[in-house]
């Protein structure tokens, strides 16, 4: 039985079908890349799973629990954590508070010392432990990305959704980022990551699902997918010859 199951999900924006009957699933502990050219509906899929947008039709299940139709705070408490494509930190709060909120309001509802400890651990994981009392508004871009990941981790999630978390990093930071995600995966976390950096996907994900124009065009082993003519032509913008 699959852990995260997306079943014929559809998202309609007016006349545009951003996600068109997409189905795929993840096993517990699996790490899967979600690929596709710009505008293919990847972020929309993340938004559907996290509840930022309601599905037009179709269903989404996590560990046998139906997420469809739940508000995003309920979905967060069900164990779904995410980062955002455009980084969202809370500029007037300290790093500690930024990270603590998922521990406090998430599924485990810690408070006081315990919440602090969870947040400290998450900050340490991403390498921000020393700056816990700094204000988030003063952080550099890469540190904001780290902070966002720490916030997702402090939720102690069942599944982590990363939306281009590696984008915009320099080569050194990228290597660190890949290593960090690998550690999280090895620690048993289920991860679905939207990513454009193919090398990172190759390094991290044994399996990928690929979208184009809202449809799922591949769901297979990474190497096979990357040489799949349909996938290649989707990326290069050509038509698929059936």
């Amino acid at each position, binding site marked *: 039985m699959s852990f995260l199951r997306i079943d014929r999900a559809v998202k309609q924006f007016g006349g545009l079908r951003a996600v068109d009957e997409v189905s795929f699933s993840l096993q517990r502990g699996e790490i899967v890349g979600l690929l596709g050219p710009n505008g293919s509906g990847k972020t929309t899929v993340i938004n559907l799973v996290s509840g930022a947008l309601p599905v037009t039709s179709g269903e989404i299940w996590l560990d046998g629990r139906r997420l469809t139709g739940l508000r995003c705070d309920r979905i967060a408490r069900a164990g779904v954590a995410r980062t955002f494509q455009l980084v969202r*930190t*809370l500029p*007037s709060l300290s790093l500690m508070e930024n990270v603590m909120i998922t521990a406090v*309001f*998430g599924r485990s509802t810690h408070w006081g010392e315990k919440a602090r400890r969870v947040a400290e651990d998450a900050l340490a994981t991403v390498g921000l432990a020393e700056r816990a009392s700094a204000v988030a508004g003063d952080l550099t871009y890469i540190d904001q990305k780290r902070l966002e990941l720490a*916030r997702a981790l402090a*939720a102690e999630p069942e599944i982590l959704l990363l939306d281009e978390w590696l984008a915009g990093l320099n080569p050194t930071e990228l290597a660190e980022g890949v290593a960090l995600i690998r550690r999280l995966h090895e620690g048993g976390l289920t991860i679905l990551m939207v990513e454009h950096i193919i090398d990172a996907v190759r390094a991290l994900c044994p399996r990928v699902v690929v979208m184009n124009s809202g449809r799922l065009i591949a769901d297979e082993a990474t190497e096979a997918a990357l040489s799949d003519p349909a996938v290649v032509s989707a990326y290069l913008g050509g038509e698929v010859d059936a």
Partner: protein
Amino acid sequence: MRLILPLICLAVLAVLPLHFSDYGLGLLIGAATYVTLASAWALFSGHTHYISLATVAFYGAGAYTVAVLNEVLPYPAILLCAAVIGGTLALIVGLSTLRLRGVYFVIFSFGLAELIRQLITWYEVNVTGTLGRYIFLDITTRQIYWQMLALGAATIALTAWIMRARLGLALRVIGDDETVAAHSGVNLARVKLIAFVLSSVILTLAGAITSPRYVYVEPSIVFNPTVSFLTVIMALLGGANRLWGPALGAVPLFLVFEFLSSNFPDTYPIFLGLLFIGVVFVVPDGLISAAERLTRRGQVRA
């Protein structure tokens, strides 16, 4: 230790009316009222940045409750009624409007106060046939002051407690980014509703407690939108997201406005206008933050 200083201040404030003339006592009541209003306003709006102009809707509802019931029920029961009415009104308004954001919420809250005023006026003129009502209660001016002082102290204490609780953290997260709040598991509707109702009940009680001072009550007096505007600017001047900010802004501004409205009633709006613009451009985070920034800069230089 942190409790001792406020408690001493409270004790001093409580014995003040024994040494004050009627005029001085009137000023004390006014100042205490605006400290309460600004602090209660900030309880909801200070951290969430939902700028509510509905203050006078609740304040006026409280005053009107007393005006209608003052010959029917004993005083404590009237206060209880006012609290229930304010809370119910806030619940209805909150349930339907707290998903509006930014300017929509501002305008909605302003429109709400006006709508209530218009409806009460219409009802009084056409149904009961009495536009004005009189409040005859056996309450001394000092008792009004003590009640307002107690309500103000309770508001600040409640705010202090909330800011150390989950609710306070949730409100601050909502003020920074509602999307992140929701994705972190914060139940937006519930958090906003709780804070809004708490704030509104206090505003309603403030209107009820102060109403015997009016003696004569009609909609245009107790639903005067200036009360809402003053409350906002007082809280913002001191710093709406600070515990003592609203009180710090309310006391001097109340005295200034009192002075202006009795000596220069015509320039009053101009001053209010300059104050709003000044706060936005000079001390956007309030006086407390500005002072902190100044002292920090002084330390760095030294």
